[in-house]
């Protein structure tokens, strides 16, 4: 069955450092992958979409890579700030359908001063 894995342990980093979060998937050949941010008590907020023919995408301090051979996406936040502290979710479309997303469990990022 299709499976998405994100590191369930919280990632603690110091302000100014680069945070790297991992999303691994199995039994998928997704046409694209999305990353969302979720704050406590709030709904997920879309950050970036990367397509299968794109190796890398950037938006301000964010960078996403997509390796379809390794079946992995990496999400980087450079020059991290305490305001970046949140849970980050990766999401892929269900195989055989583009109508629904399956989400990973998310990785909580904590940026400290």
């Amino acid at each position, binding site marked *: 069955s299709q499976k*998405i894995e994100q590191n*369930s342990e919280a990632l603690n980093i110091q302000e100014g450092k680069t945070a790297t979060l991992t999303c691994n998937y199995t039994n998928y050949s997704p*046409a*694209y992958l*999305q990353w*969302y941010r979720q704050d406590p*008590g*709030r*709904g*997920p*907020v*879309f950050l970036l*979409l990367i*397509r299968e023919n794109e190796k890398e995408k950037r938006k301000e301090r964010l960078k996403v890579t997509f390796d379809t051979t390794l079946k992995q996406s990496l999400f980087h936040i450079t020059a991290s700030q305490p305001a970046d502290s949140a849970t980050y*979710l990766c*999401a892929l*479309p*269900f195989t055989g*359908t*583009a*109508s*629904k*997303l*399956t*989400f*990973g*469990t*998310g990785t909580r990022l904590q940026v400290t001063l």
Partner: protein
Amino acid sequence: GAGVSQSPRYKVAKRGQDVALRCDPISGHVSLFWYQQALGQGPEFLTYFQNEAQLDKSGLPSDRFFAERPEGSVSTLKIQRTQQEDSAVYLCASSLVRAGYSNQPQHFGDGTRLSIL
């Protein structure tokens, strides 16, 4: 409003009661999704509407769950004869075009936190 609005934000019900959760999507958005999110987990797909048509309800956990979007805008998720395992956050999301056409991002509301006693 500018975003997806869900009401109520919190709902407490006794086991066996029926509940109705409302979602107001972004105006003009064609696609509407419902998700269930358990504590510490990612959202799990429940059902999908394209305008007023419910095209996918494969994620609904039982026939106690029912969703509608009669005029292609506001949607209601109804849970009948609630059980404790129904306790979760229910998220609604909308997107501009029909799903799969251009891989549009989904815009989420802040959810309804449902607690069944």
